């Protein structure tokens, strides 16, 4: 029971961990932008009246929401190159898996947001002579996106946590580096505790921020 | 007649806001007391203090001669178990009925008997049916509350309280949430209770009810009892300007000459 906590080895290996943290931030930024950005396109497509647009969007959403993201990453790493001849390195496989998964989830968030806007708003747009696209872009989306901001932030938090899965295919991020430090110094307790604390310290304020955001939006509505 | 409820120097504050500023009242067994007052006068808070839905900040409450709580260090202390036992002896009916939607009417009326009083189910069921019959809803026993009208819901709520064999009944604006045409059936039920000799305290805006059913009317203003007396005199000839204004505000009610 009496374990001697010794975080000195972690501090000594800080440069190793730092490489991982940079890797985490890098993949997070790319996947969150692609995922939440692409999700908007899929979400709007999913809402389209044309079945040729809405059905592929729906199929995409169903496939990526109903399979585990780790399966997606591994599929892109091992199976995708055989199918397409395109080589994927750990980074690309992880980016594809996490981004597409996030696109599917955020598409549903955007769609719910668009659906929550009353018909009267569409009619008001039409009445002043706007086209469907103009109404969508200028009237509906600004309100819808604002409304789903808390849900999107939560998705962003999930993406940040998901980035650790990239380590499974060998991408160099925080958890991967912690494992390396742990293997070299035989200090799994300190290594993994350090990673957990890093994530907690980053995400806890963000989570508290979403609570504030939710309260503000509720008041504003 | 014997004393059933005695309140001494009742105070209640919410934070800095003092809602009750020293209420003294003695209620005799079988009496019907109506509490009047504009909103914010403290009448509902006073009622809710009597069965400790709100804990009084200061003051003493005696039920049937026994003091509720124990005095220690100049303050009253209340144990949760004691308060639960007390609430089982005092019936309360609310503005919004507060029936349990996941239980049938019969189960609603049996719940307290079985869980709180520990009555056997057959006995509780007989008792429940008797009380439902009393409020005229025996045939609705197997329905869920969602299927009842507001007036019916409120009568079930009354039966639920009565099934506990309460020593006192508290009615907190029980007709305020009802459509006008449903008010009558509920008031009739309460009037019947009064005639059966139940001790009751009612917060209401129904001046006609107060006039015809109450033995005594209290007029609360800013946390104190400003006036009290028999309804026939106090409603016709209020002593204070405050109460006159209040009665004029309820001009829908025409007092009989």
């Amino acid at each position, binding site marked *: 029971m009496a374990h001697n906590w010794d975080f000195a080895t972690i501090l000594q290996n800080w440069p190793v961990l730092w490489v991982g943290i940079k890797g985490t931030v890098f993949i997070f930024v790319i996947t969150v932008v692609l995922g939440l950005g692409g999700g908007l396109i899929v979400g709007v497509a999913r809402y389209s009246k044309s079945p040729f647009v809405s059905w592929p969007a729906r199929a995409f959403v169903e496939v990526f929401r109903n399979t585990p993201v780790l399966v997606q990453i591994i599929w892109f790493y091992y199976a995708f190159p055989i199918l397409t001849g395109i080589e994927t390195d750990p980074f690309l496989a992880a980016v594809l898996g996490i981004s597409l998964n996030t696109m599917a989830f955020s598409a549903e968030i955007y769609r719910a947001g668009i659906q929550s806007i009353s018909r009267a708003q569409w009619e008001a747009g039409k009445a002043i002579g706007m086209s469907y696209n103009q109404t969508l872009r200028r009237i509906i989306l600004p309100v819808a996106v604002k409304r789903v901001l808390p849900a999107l932030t939560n998705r962003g938090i999930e993406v940040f946590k998901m980035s650790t899965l990239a380590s499974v295919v060998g991408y160099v991020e925080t*958890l991967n580096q912690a494992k390396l430090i742990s293997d070299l110094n035989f200090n799994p307790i300190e290594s993994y505790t350090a990673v957990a604390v890093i994530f907690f310290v980053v995400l806890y304020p963000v989570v508290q921020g979403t609570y504030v955001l939710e309260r503000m939006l509720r008041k504003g509505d | 007649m014997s004393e059933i409820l005695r309140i001494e120097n009742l105070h209640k504050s919410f934070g800095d806001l003092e809602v009750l500023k020293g209420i003294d009242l003695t209620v005799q067994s079988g009496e019907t007391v109506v509490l009047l007052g504009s909103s914010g006068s403290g009448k509902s808070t006073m009622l809710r203090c009597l069965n400790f839905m709100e804990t009084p900040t200061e003051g003493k409450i005696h039920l049937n001669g026994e003091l509720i709580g124990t005095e220690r260090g100049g303050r009253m202390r209340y144990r949760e178990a004691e308060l639960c036992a007390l609430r089982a002896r005092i019936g309360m009916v609310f503005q919004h009925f507060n029936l349990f939607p996941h239980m049938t009417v019969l189960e609603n009326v049996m719940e307290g008997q079985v869980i709180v009083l520990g009555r056997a189910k057959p006995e509780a069921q007989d008792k429940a049916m008797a009380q439902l019959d009393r409020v005229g809803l025996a045939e609705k026993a197997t329905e869920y509350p969602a299927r009842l009208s507001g007036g019916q819901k409120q009568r079930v709520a009354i039966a639920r309280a009565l099934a506990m064999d309460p020593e006192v009944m508290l009615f907190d604006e029980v007709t305020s949430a009802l459509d006008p045409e449903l008010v009558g059936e509920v008031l009739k039920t309460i009037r019947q209770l009064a005639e059966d000799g139940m001790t009751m305290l009612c917060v209401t805006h129904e001046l006609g009810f107060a006039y015809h059913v109450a033995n005594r009317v209290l007029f609360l203003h800013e946390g104190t009892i400003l006036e009290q007396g028999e309804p026939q005199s106090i409603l016709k000839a209020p002593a204070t300007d405050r109460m006159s204004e209040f009665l004029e505000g309820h001009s829908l009610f025409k007092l009989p000459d």
Partner: protein
Amino acid sequence: MEWNFLAVLRDFDLLMLGLLNTLKVTGLALLFGVPLGLALALSRLSTFRILSGIAGFIVEFFRTTPPLVQLFWFFFALPILIDVRMTPLIAAVVTFSIQSSAFFAEIFRGGILSIDKGQWEGAKAIGMTYGQCQRRIILPQAIKRMIPAFMERSIELLKTTTLVSTVAYTDLMFQANELAQKTFRPLEVYTIVAAIYFVLIFLFSQFSIAVEHRLAKSGEGTVR
């Protein structure tokens, strides 16, 4: 390139064994995670400051740290700390029970808070204790409202169990890795495994949507 599923189908029982283990981990994590979540929610709602503070910290900590980090911690670090023999199964069940309990706690809390204050008053007025109120009046209603969120979280849990493959527990994902190496057919293996997960999860979510519709029809609100 050519698809060839024969090699995969020959060893299909390996995958089925993995699927069974996936369901086993999910089931066990639910078995422990749900009651633990209820306990955390009730603690967090408690007026006793220290208790609600601790429960709040546990919930937030396990919601804001990645499940894979938690799994590694329980598998590699905990055995040193308290000197227990840790198997992949135990590590997985412990991790996912606690991790999902943090999420279930928030669902429970939302459900309980969504119940009208009048229900508490109605129960209190007939002399019920806090425990009786909670057990007989509040929770039965709250749980009904929580069902959709509860099922959604269970599906998330099922997906998250794929992580146990990284500590060498023979779940469906792990078996897929084994089979891919054995047959040199990663494309077919991973595609089939993805399809198995898809069918399983798709059926679960369709079922959960159907239940949600029924609840909506019966006039019950739901919480997220």
